[in-house]
């Protein structure tokens, strides 16, 4: 597309800041304003594992077509960090714009002939207008947002109402913010042509959608799902799941009469203890969860094996980041898939759920509790840093007023009275799921000894090969049963129309959908399926069998989901092509399209 042409609601702005300088709230203000104008927008926070002084970026994609994935190519760079200036200049698209603080002259090395420069003396303007040092720093950010309002045609009244909401109760702060915004607007109007050749125009494409990060949605989901015990150890990028849970608990879990809390949140000494607490609480009949990321999941493997074998419901929210080891702690990836699926030694298999949106984070957190209790086993919600820590435009949360928690097969005292002999691991119903009792239920019936060692149907320790094998086979039967319990995949077509099928999951959804449109524009039709859960149910198998060539799109190096499909469904490796991104940034539609078309061009394909 020629840059001369005016583009409406279709561009990428990137902000290059220093972390700890208050840029985050200014950048969010910019993003939220576009959202309020009814235009689909997707922000990505690219931040260091550091508290103050290192480069941080905030990238905002505006897309009339509603593409919420990341897009390569920066149309406008707002560069206020001298540290990263070289890379920031280089990353601007040819013909794009580079907005910088012209209080100091820009070095010649930063000048590119194919880039338009917009110099605004942010520091000078701030020093003149504000006296307080902190204000001078903060309002520099607000001034450039004001400049963007003029350059991109953002409705100024939207900012006014956003600031009004943000500073409710601290109204004194509204006026200086408006003043700083206006300074930016005025400077652009006096010195530059505006708007640029890309800008925003009010639309009604947002409807009743909301904007929130996935971690907050998980925290809220756990509140709605009735979680009462949360145990955790701080780790990026999962920390904000429990922090959100705490925040919502402060609001919704205080007993109105006693003022006491209907929740226990324990910051554990490490991830080992965190998951141990979760298992103890679930064993005792409370809904309990933890949130962690790759390194924590590694530590939790031991206990996950216990929970699998002793059949204790466990909910774990894994906000994946770039591994291995400490990896890139503040970058995204979908690289815990295999570790989670088979966590712990011995023969184990675990239920995984793959949310794509904040709404799904909310719903699937709730599903995870139901599934964990119905199936009496660990359930892991496999989200990632991109979904967890970035704001996303999402369908609003919904909760059916009649929804009841599915607590699974738990025997009450009355039920125990009707049973002659209780067998904790006796498969009464033939579905592999046995009945459990909570401690304290009945004076003389229902007690049993929970253990990670082999035992018989009555929970009595045994080293009998027969009893051990019976138990392992029953667990496998339960696994088969689980296929009918877990979320079915999302199919993008009622009837398959292509020999090519795309498979993706989690945050790869947005770019994959966009890639399908791009491919369609190149006359390449594809069918698609978004996985929502492991184990794979029948629909997953059917989709794969119905296509000649399958592309598995995922954000890791080793094609982990592809491996899982091969292992679990016995699909021939030749049929499954990998589309990968593992640089720590969210996958883009261009990356997907490029990789798919390169395979399609291969001879004999």
């Amino acid at each position, binding site marked *: 597309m020629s840059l001369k042409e005016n583009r409406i609601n279709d561009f990428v702005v990137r902000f290059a800041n220093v972390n700890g300088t208050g840029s985050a709230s200014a950048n969010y203000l910019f993003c939220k304003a576009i959202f309020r104008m009814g235009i689909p927008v997707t922000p990505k926070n690219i931040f260091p594992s550091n508290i103050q002084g290192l480069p941080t970026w905030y990238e905002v994609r505006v897309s009339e077509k509603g593409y919420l994935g990341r897009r390569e190519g920066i149309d406008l760079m707002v560069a206020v960090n001298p540290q990263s200036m070289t890379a920031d200049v280089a990353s601007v698209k040819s013909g794009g714009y580079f907005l910088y603080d012209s209080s100091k002259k820009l070095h010649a090395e930063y000048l590119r002939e194919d880039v338009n420069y917009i110099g605004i003396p942010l520091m000078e303007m701030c020093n003149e207008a504000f006296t307080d040092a902190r204000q001078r720093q903060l309002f520099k950010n607000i001034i450039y947002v004001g400049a963007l309002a003029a350059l991109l045609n953002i409705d100024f009244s939207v900012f006014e109402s956003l600031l009004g909401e943000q500073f409710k109760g601290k109204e004194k702060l509204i006026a200086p913010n408006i003043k700083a915004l206006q300074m930016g607007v005025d400077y652009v109007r006096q010195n530059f042509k505006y708007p640029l050749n890309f800008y925003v125009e009010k639309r009604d494409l947002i409807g009743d959608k909301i904007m929130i990060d996935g971690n907050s949605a998980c925290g809220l989901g756990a509140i709605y799902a009735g979680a009462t015990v949360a145990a955790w150890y701080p780790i990026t990028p999962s920390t904000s799941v429990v922090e959100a849970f705490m925040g919502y608990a402060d609001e919704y879990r205080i007993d109105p009469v006693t003022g006491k809390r209907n929740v226990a949140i324990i910051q554990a000494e490490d991830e080992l203890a965190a998951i141990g607490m979760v298992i103890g609480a679930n064993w005792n009949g*409370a809904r309990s969860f933890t949130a962690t990321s790759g390194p924590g999941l590694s530590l939790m493997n031991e206990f996950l094996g216990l929970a699998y074998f002793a059949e204790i419901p466990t909910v774990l929210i894994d906000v994946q980041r770039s591994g291995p080891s400490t990896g890139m702690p503040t970058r995204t990836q979908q690289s815990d898939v295999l570790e989670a699926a088979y966590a712990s030694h011995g023969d184990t298999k675990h239920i995984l759920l793959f949310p794509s949106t904040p709404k799904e984070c909310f719903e699937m957190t709730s599903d995870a509790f139901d599934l964990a209790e119905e199936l009496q086993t660990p359930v892991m919600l496999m989200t990632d840093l991109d979904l967890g820590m970035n704001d996303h435009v999402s369908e609003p949360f919904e909760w059916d007023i009649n929804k009841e928690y599915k607590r699974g097969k738990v025997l009450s005292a009355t039920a125990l009275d009707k049973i002659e002999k209780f067998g904790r691991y006796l498969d009464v119903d033939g579905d592999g799921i046995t009945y459990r009792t909570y401690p304290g239920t009945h004076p003389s019936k229902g*007690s049993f000894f929970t253990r990670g060692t082999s035992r018989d149907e009555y929970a009595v320790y045994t080293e009998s090969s027969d009893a051990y094998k019976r138990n392992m086979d029953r667990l496998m039967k339960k696994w088969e049963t689980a296929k009918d319990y877990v979320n079915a995949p999302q199919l993008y077509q009622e009837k398959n129309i292509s020999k090519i099928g795309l498979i993706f999951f989690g945050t790869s959804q947005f770019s994959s959908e966009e890639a399908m449109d791009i491919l369609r524009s190149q006359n390449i039709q594809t069918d698609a399926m978004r996985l929502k859960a492991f184990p794979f149910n029948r629909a997953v198998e059917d989709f794969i069998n119905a296509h000649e060539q399958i592309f598995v799109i995922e954000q890791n190096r080793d094609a982990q989901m592809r491996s899982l499909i091969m292992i679990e469904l016995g699909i021939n490796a030749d049929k499954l092509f990998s589309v990968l991104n593992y640089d720590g940034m969210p996958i883009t539609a261009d990356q997907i399209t490029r990789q798919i078309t390169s395979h399609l061009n291969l001879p004999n394909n």
Partner: protein
Amino acid sequence: MTYIRPKFRHPELPKNKLGYTISYYEGALSTLCAGCGHDSISAGIVQAAYEMNIEPHKLAKLSGIGCSSKTPAYFLSNSHGFNSVHGRMPSVATGANMANRDLIYFGVSGDGDSASIGMGQFVHVIRRNLNMVYIVMNNGCYGLTKGQDSATADRGSKNKSGNVNLFQSIDLASLAIELGATFVAQSFSGDKTQLVPLIKAAMNHPGFAFINVISPCVTFNNNVGSTKSYDFVREHVEATATIDFVPMMSEIKAEYTEGDSKMVKLHDGTYLKLHKLSQEWDPLNRLSAMNAVHNAREKDEILTGLLYMDPDSGDLHEMIQTSDRPLNTLTEKELCPGPEVLKNINADLR
């Protein structure tokens, strides 16, 4: 060792206030070695629970891994039990306790389970003053893997293979006091008269109650030269005081000291009666307790009995202000804010 325990019980076995005989508090047949100190401790637990009129199903027993951690199968078979993973019992107990504050939590661990692999969890469960009994059956060695030294083996102690331990031992009781445990006692598996009242007092304590019980390993650490053998412990044991657990007694109005005995009033109106009190030691004073333990060690004595207690400590529930109703009894009604609230949350996110 396997043998058949007769099912016959004397028909006129006395019953406790709940109408249960002591046999109601027993567990499965022990598979530990004949003469194992752990079995004596299990018997002490059975007796304490019987005499305390505990409803077995209102008690949950938890353990880690090792010989000691097997014992919950050998007492209170009408209680739920949880044999978790090595060194991780405290975290499981923490979660369980958070879920239901109305049960008694009875943790059993060993010296390997607590002083080595589980040291982190042991330390942190003390910090949180979790309301539980925590017994370490301490034999100074890894019995189940055939006798390797553990971290509580004394320096210079000789094991069955004749190897002398080169490393400083970890003294769990003084560590617990140092960390602020609110009930710390030490005992010897061969002294049931002392152990039973200690277990009762521990069960009654509204916070973390730790009992380090020296429990000789007859198979791997009962030899000459071992400082955890029956003979050595018997020769070196020194008690702080003899102890009685006195149930609620209306005639006792206030705490008093009389001669060499002391009545310690507990939170619920029950008393601990300590006789033959050693002069330099006050069980309610942490510093004094520390000194008593250190002085005994200087004299090569193993100080047993109640070492320290803070009868009025607030447990984890009190600290984090959880509701009085057990969390596992709450339902959708109390827990789910419902769709109307969600509408407002959605509105705030637009």
